[in-house]
């Protein structure tokens, strides 16, 4: 088990209670919060003022590379050993468009998944406090902070309506 990062973990049943806590904590300077939820929730995203994920750049890059690779592979291989088929030019663009299209999708999808994994693992959660209820029906807010801030953060969470507050030992 990885060494835990010190901080406070609050559990919430009500979504508006959780967003209240997030907003208050953010105004107090706790901007590196981690919020756990069983499903994506727009209210939480808005409270956290999340920016759009850069995963789309991976998709775009993958798609463009796939399309270029599709045309490059087919044209190069046709010219490497030129064989006349059906009277068509060696580097025939219309039939190769089908292959370039398929590779655009394939590379786009693979790059998207790679982007999702890389971006998610850039901020690992294995050293943060977690509770199994967060994949069920509760929202969790973890605030990394030093032990002298524990009571202040716990106070904010309790006031917002947290059902359980714990801190790292």
């Amino acid at each position, binding site marked *: 088990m990885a060494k835990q990062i010190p901080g406070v973990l609050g559990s919430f049943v*009500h*979504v508006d209670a959780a967003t209240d806590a997030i907003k208050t904590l953010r105004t107090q300077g706790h901007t590196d919060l981690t919020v756990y939820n069983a499903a994506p929730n727009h209210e939480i995203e808005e409270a956290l003022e999340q920016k759009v994920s850069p995963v789309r750049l991976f998709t775009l890059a993958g798609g463009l590379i796939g399309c270029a690779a599709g045309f490059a592979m087919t044209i190069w291989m046709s010219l490497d050993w030129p064989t006349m088929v059906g009277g068509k030019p060696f580097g025939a663009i219309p039939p190769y468009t*089908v292959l370039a299209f398929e590779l655009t999708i*394939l590379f786009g*999808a693979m790059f*998207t998944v790679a982007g999702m994994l890389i971006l998610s693992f850039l901020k690992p*959660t294995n050293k943060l406090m977690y509770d199994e209820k967060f994949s069920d029906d509760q929202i969790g807010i973890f605030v990394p902070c030093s032990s002298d801030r524990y009571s202040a953060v716990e106070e904010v969470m309790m006031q917002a309506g947290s059902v359980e507050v714990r801190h790292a030992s």
Partner: protein
Amino acid sequence: MTAIAQDRPTQTHAEVTRDVVATLGTHGRGYTIMLGGAVALFLVGLITFVLLLKDGLGLAGYNSPVMWSVYITTFVFWVGIGHAGTLISAILFLFRSPWRTAVYRATEAMTVFAVMTAGLFPIIHIGRQWLFYWLLPYPNQRYLWVNFKSPLLWDVFAIGTYLTVSTTFLVVGLVPDIAAVRDHVSGWRKKIYSICSIGWTGSDNQWRHYSRGYLYLAALATPLVLSVHSVVSWDFAMALVPGWHGTIFAPYFVAGAIYSGVGMVFTLLIPLRKVLHLEHMITVYHLENLAKLTLFTGSILFYAYAIEYFVAWYSGVPAEQTTFYLRAFGPMWWAGWTMIICNAFVSQLFWFKKIRTNITALFILSIFINIGMWFERFVIIVGSLGNDHIPFAWGQLNPNWADWGILAGSFGWFLMYFLLFARTFPIVAIQEIKEMIPMPRKRTGGHR
């Protein structure tokens, strides 16, 4: 307003987790019988395949000029089955159709296993199965590359991409659900689900990238699914064989694929929801929406069949006219009429709400759809090849036990994977259902 009231699940978040986790690892009698049947069918196919490897393709009923027959028919059938899954999981996701959430996981799994099944058939059909890698563009000692101008090569890339992307789409969708299962089981199962959940905790950062990534995957899968059956249709439409050389083939095949796929969804889900006790999650409302999809795609098929006959008549080409005359009144009239009745006519029964909401009727009709769509491909492939431009070279196919053995085996192979998946992984998407249920609020109180 009843429809709107029904489209949102009525359970709480916790109930959704419990109900879906309860489906895992169950050993009901119904399930065991279904799995036993699937394994038995798979063994029939396996034995037939071993004999084919030993004795060669001469064992099957190939008969010149019909050199594409049951195996290619079954290939097209299974690729088509997959299409409904991607339509429901990706296209309806982009359209924000709320009713898809209850059925999408099962249909996406169906897609992956159907394409896995389909992928076997070109390999079985090539005869020297151990040389299948010749289909791929790899550097070899003869410096020869594959023929990229052939639709068969487009197929290799289309099916390969389809299998990879739909598997990825299924697995990506599964990760948050596996994490939910991980947190609700214990012992060795917890360890296995922990590894499979790759450290998912549902943190805001994970959801931020996940939601966007999933959206792009859906956006990529959408044109892909339309391209795959179009490419499969061009395997035929690019050739000058009468009955194949039509410009309507791509949309005609895509509509047929979705029609057959939704038929298979009924065949699978109706017994499964009973066996896994999911009747309250996969409801008549969901099945009725699927039936409407069947009606829509079935009507496109009806139109395509009519246009095919019209074009044959209007073309003035005797070979084309003869092929279509023989489809209805030739030696294989029974196959031609099975296709028309089971697809064009059966789909029209879904105009009636009483049929759309009757689960027994849906199940029975789905069997007709499966049969009809298999025969559609059989008629197109075998019917056209048997009656080509030169009547001197006409011939009939005589399918034998080696053809039927592999066909039966393919159903066993597909059902075996599907059933094993259903008891190992959440067959209903926990995360997406929860997204539909508003979280409780302290200010208004209650659940909404």
